């Protein structure tokens, strides 16, 4: 019963996540400015991913915000106020392609290794590192896919997890 509740809560939480994409100038300190803005306005960032865009001198920043606790329209407007931010769009209700990449280092010995690799195959994930006691799995996809594989790998013992946060483009 409790497990259902937490799962429902998680689904609800996922549904309230909103994706903002900002095109920002590649000027020093931009990331700091955005982070500082979020901190002082009390906006909750779930994830932030930034890298060069197709336009020279501009970077694309994908920000996932918890819509349940944050006034997303205010987030969008406040971001827009920043001089270095060229454009902000809320892509949540648009048709987008959203992806995230995760590296999961999981405990693995000779007994558990094949089961883990089977799971990875099912998720179309890759094993990118093997050692006697562990292996690293690289998986890309939407957050739920990564969450799901992560849950299944838990019983083997997760050593480390690194996630990039979502990036997204409109279809």
């Amino acid at each position: 019963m409790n497990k259902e509740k937490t799962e429902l809560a998680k689904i609800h939480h996922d549904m309230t996540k909103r994706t903002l994409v900002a095109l920002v100038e590649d000027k020093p300190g931009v990331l700091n400015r955005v982070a500082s803005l979020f901190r002082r306005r009390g906006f909750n960032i779930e994830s932030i991913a930034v890298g060069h865009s197709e336009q020279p001198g501009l970077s694309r920043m994908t920000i996932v915000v918890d819509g349940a606790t944050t006034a997303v329209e205010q987030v969008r407007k406040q971001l827009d106020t920043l001089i270095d931010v060229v454009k902000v769009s809320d892509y949540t209700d648009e048709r987008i392609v959203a992806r995230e990449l995760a590296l999961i280092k999981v405990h693995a010995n000779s007994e558990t290794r094949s089961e883990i690799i089977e799971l990875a195959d099912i998720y179309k994930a890759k094993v990118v590192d093997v050692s006697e006691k562990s292996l690293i799995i690289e998986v890309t996809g939407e957050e739920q896919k990564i969450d799901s594989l992560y849950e299944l790998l838990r019983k083997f013992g997760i050593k480390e997890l690194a996630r990039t946060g979502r990036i997204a483009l409109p279809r």
Partner: protein
Amino acid sequence: MKLKGAQILCECLVKEGVEVIFGFPGGSVIPLYDVLPQYPQLRHILVRHEQCAAHAADAYARVTGKVGVCIATSGPGASNLVTGIANAHLDSSPILAITGQVARPFIGKDAFQEIDITGITVPITKHNRIVRKAEDIAIRVREAFHIASTGRPGPVLLDFPRDVFLEEAVFHYPDKVDLPGYKPTLKGHPAQIKRAARLIQESKRPVILAGRGINISQAHKELLELAEKTDIPVITTLLGISSFPENHELSMGMLGMHGMAYANMAVNNADLVIAIGMRFDDRATGKVSGFAPHAQIVHIDIDPSEIGKNVRVTVPIVGEVKNVLRVLNKEVMELKHPEWIAQMHLWKREHPADITSNGTFIKPQSVIDKICEITKSNAIIVTGVGQHQMWAAQHYCYIKPNSLVSSGGLGTMGFALPAAVGSKVGLPNEIVWAIDGDGSFQMTLQELATVVQEKLDIKIAIMNNTFLGMVRQWQELFHNRNYVATPITGPDFVKLAEAYGIPAARVMEKTKVAEAIETAMKHKGPYILEFIVEPEENVYPMVAPGATLAQVLEDPRKKIKVKETSKEISNL
């Protein structure tokens, strides 16, 4: 032709029409000060604390409409600017803060007098940059002035490493700036304006809420036209004071925590609120959920992020207030609201801002009244923060546009004196009265030396109640009179003034108030009046924190007075 970075900066300032810089030197800015004499168009005013350079630049900007400029050295000089910059940020004042920085090889090494001022001021500037090459100076300065003065004005900080001042480059002042992320909307959307005009047409109990945006945009004429054409009463925020003449029939004074009871009542009963250049700050709205419960809201503001931030808005109009009003004035029809206006005037009569004048102490409100009377509403009033600030807002009759300079958003004690310096330097032919409290005054009184050095004819009124008055009032009303850290001593202000070379007088009797003010006015040069005022006088009306504007606390003494009167009547 190659110039040193410091010279390039000065050339840029001249190109931008800068005439005054408020500053304080130090190691990192010596190269800049070294070349200043080559630019006699740039008058430098030496302050006594960098915070006051920022405040002076802020006030200068408010009264002249130009970008105020201040200079500080690196490290403590720059960090001393922080309060002044934050103050300008919250009140949307255009200033350029120029800070020195350690030389480039030393940045990030905890060098002597190094501080990450650009990191520190990110949340309180509209924009800031470290200028890393002499050849970048011109474009950075051009951008800085553009950003500071356009859209919603605000402070911009430029940080100059010392060796950049000494580096040489060819000076070329750019024709334009390229800021793809900064395109303020200046004209309101015509369809939205039409919608607003329709709402105005249909409303029966409309009010205009005018804020600092009117003063910034210099839209006094347009506001007057709107109010008169549509016969709508005008209420102001604190910083909206002097956006509309207070002796006008349609003027309903200030709303909010210490606003007039009748202004708050008007908002509570309105069916339409036309908010112009104001941001629904909590001091103005009271508990936001209870604000204007029966009204639709038209919100005209240049900053789109203010719209919908605090209250739900029916018709948002983003644009510069002056532009929007011009179009709106053409769209609205001539209207009359005789019953609503009559109701306003009735409320005004029933809830006057009166002063019960018993007791021997001078009532601070009466000092303001007298200053108003003697200056004939012609002065620029500059205030500190606290009770005296509220009395200055309530009791001076503001008729002259843009004649109140006060720290609204940040509420910075100590603002009065340096702001008076900036105001007088900006408007040397105007009468400038600084109205301050004994607590506030002590925060920045060292600027009296600036007043003397620059020969500024500023009149200063210190309301001395030997308390940090506003805090004491809260302690009285909400903390059982637990006066902790609020009784405050100070110097003998008259002796202090004389030590600075400024004539001064202490006024202790009610009958001597007018005469003292006249003397101060007649004196050519700065003059200080210390008024010994009622120590535990409270600012009324008051809307307690967490209360709505419907829950106005009026001066309890007035109730007693009314009761006595009705006793008399019933005895007749």
